[in-house]
């Protein structure tokens, strides 16, 4: 019914090479995280299916995809929490495994589903984690203050709300001032005020030089913060680029929505052959045509000529959100 317009390939932008500066060129050679041909099967479910991606030093990388796309599985494999079925992951050029935990000294990780020990206070919790990471526990009070948990530092974590636990999760990720942060849905389940705290924190850490990867299923979160995005769907990367380049590559076009009496879900012959028309879709009496602005009239005229009764029409401006939805629906996302 719907004509495909996206190719199933990862775009590697050429445009970026124009902008490359000397240090960036160095970084391009040695990504902080490199995922190569990752597969992860759970019984019959292919959670990750031949995923290749890389995160460069100093960037904020958005890992975007609908629920169930395989973001958490990929992240857990990077953290050596989950064993890959096949493929290689390198962090700072070291292949990761359950034995290479020393890498974790320099990583701040926030799992998607997080919890702490119920009977300990946040201070005791962070002190314990500082000791594990070889960091001086004097920073504990400041960390709690930073995420707005200064007032509850003596309460048992078991009495915390979900949002407060999440903030404690952000605080623990900052222990030891790591140069790499891997955050799995850091804003998931937080209310607006706390989302802001987390977003500001991500910016601040990045400005201080940290590389940040975070996953999300919400485009606007990613759009707001990221230098680059990797879009994942059904376990595979469908695009990896800067937000700007992605918009260009998607060739976002305005759409024309025409209501035609008695259309009954059939795209009239020849409409998608008109010059400037990208694709045409029919659903009930509604015909949606993506086309260049200059082709709109031709489309309407063509419909008239076929003797169809145009009841109404309107034009729709494209957004990146549309592109994202389109992209993942072309690949059969679960969203």
């Amino acid at each position, binding site marked *: 019914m719907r004509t495909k317009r996206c190719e199933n390939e990862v775009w590697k932008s050429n445009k970026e090479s124009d902008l490359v500066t000397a240090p960036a060129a160095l970084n391009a050679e040695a990504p902080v995280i490199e995922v190569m041909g990752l597969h992860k099967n759970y019984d019959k479910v292919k959670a990750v299916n031949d995923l290749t991606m890389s995160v460069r030093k100093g960037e904020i990388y958005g890992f975007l995809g609908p629920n169930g796309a395989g973001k958490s599985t990929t992240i*857990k494999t990077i953290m050596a929490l989950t064993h890959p079925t096949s493929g290689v992951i390198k962090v700072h050029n070291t292949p990761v495994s359950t034995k290479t*935990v020393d890498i974790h000294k320099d990583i701040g*990780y926030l799992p998607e589903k997080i*919890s702490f*020990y119920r*009977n300990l206070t946040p201070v005791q919790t962070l002190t314990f984690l500082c000791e594990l990471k070889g960091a001086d526990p004097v920073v504990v009070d400041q960390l709690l203050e930073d995420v707005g948990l200064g007032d509850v530092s003596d309460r048992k974590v078991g009495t915390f709300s979900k949002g407060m636990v999440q903030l404690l999760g952000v605080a623990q990720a900052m222990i030891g001032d790591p140069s790499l942060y891997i955050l799995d849905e850091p804003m998931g389940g937080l209310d607006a005020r706390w989302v802001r705290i987390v977003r500001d924190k991500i910016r601040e850490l990045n400005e201080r030089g940290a590389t940040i990867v975070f996953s999300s299923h919400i485009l606007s979160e990613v759009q707001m913060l990221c230098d680059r995005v990797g879009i994942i769907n059904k376990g595979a990367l469908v695009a990896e680029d800067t937000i700007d380049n992605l918009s260009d590559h998607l060739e976002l076009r305005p759409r024309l929505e025409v209501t035609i009496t008695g259309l009954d879900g059939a795209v009239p012959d020849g409409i998608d052959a008109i010059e400037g028309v990208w694709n045409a879709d029919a659903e009930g009496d509604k015909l949606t045509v993506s086309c260049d602005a200059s082709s709109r009239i031709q489309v309407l005229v063509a419909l008239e000529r076929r003797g169809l009764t145009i009841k109404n029409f309107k034009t729709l401006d494209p957004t990146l959100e549309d592109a994202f939805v389109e992209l993942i629906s072309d690949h059969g996302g679960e969203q």
Partner: protein
Amino acid sequence: MIEFGPVHTVLKKEVSDNIRNKWIILLTIIFAFLTLAASVLAGGGSLGGLEETVTTLMSISMILIPLISIMLGYSTISGEDEDGSLAVLLSYPIKRGEVFIGKFLGLGIVIALATAVGFGVSGIVIGLSKSATPWGSYAAFISLSVLLGLLYLSVSMCFSALFKRRVASLGAGILLFFWSTIYGTVLMGIYFATGGSMSDFTSANPTIPDWIWQSIYFSPMDMNQTASMLVFNIERAFGFAIEVPSFVDLASIIGAHLVWIIVPLIIAYLAFERRDI
């Protein structure tokens, strides 16, 4: 390979977390109260029959120590995996083996503390009211109880590493708790079905066949109880005369305890290492 630093950190955390666990505190209080009551009641005020006291203490510890151990152990891996705290812990520079050993030792210390408090109270009462208290035997008895606690901890931690879900490891823990009961019943069933009778146990001169004695190694509670009887030279329990044959000695029972502790720990470690969090 295994570094002491991270092990020690996890151990400390396990102790300070679990001595605040209200269920463990409650069970320990019940434990202390029951042993106190047992030692007072058994002596009728005078505390004459230490054997009587010890057999009662034994049956109390046979229930409470496995219960405490299983409660501490069953969800260490599966529970923390399910709720998400294990993902945090393993994202730190610590190996899975170090996490596992730290947890086992930390929880082992909590069990030893609970046992010391549970028996300490009655120990003091007995000690004060009797002139010749067999302190050595009493200490050996407490050590055997701690060993039993470590055994149940090891097996329940093994379940927590083998199963994905917390409920599954809880189910296995409950089965483990009743294992000795089930085992004893099955054993007696076999014995009676093959021509044995109850009078073999209750007669003045009991004739318990060797194979039943040999099979106690499969039942932690039975072998631990037998060890305690050897320690105190008890020859009567719950009205039955029991003579432990010479081939069942303390050394082999302790050896069997160690096998029961080490084998599940190794299985658990291998399962944990392969586990997807």
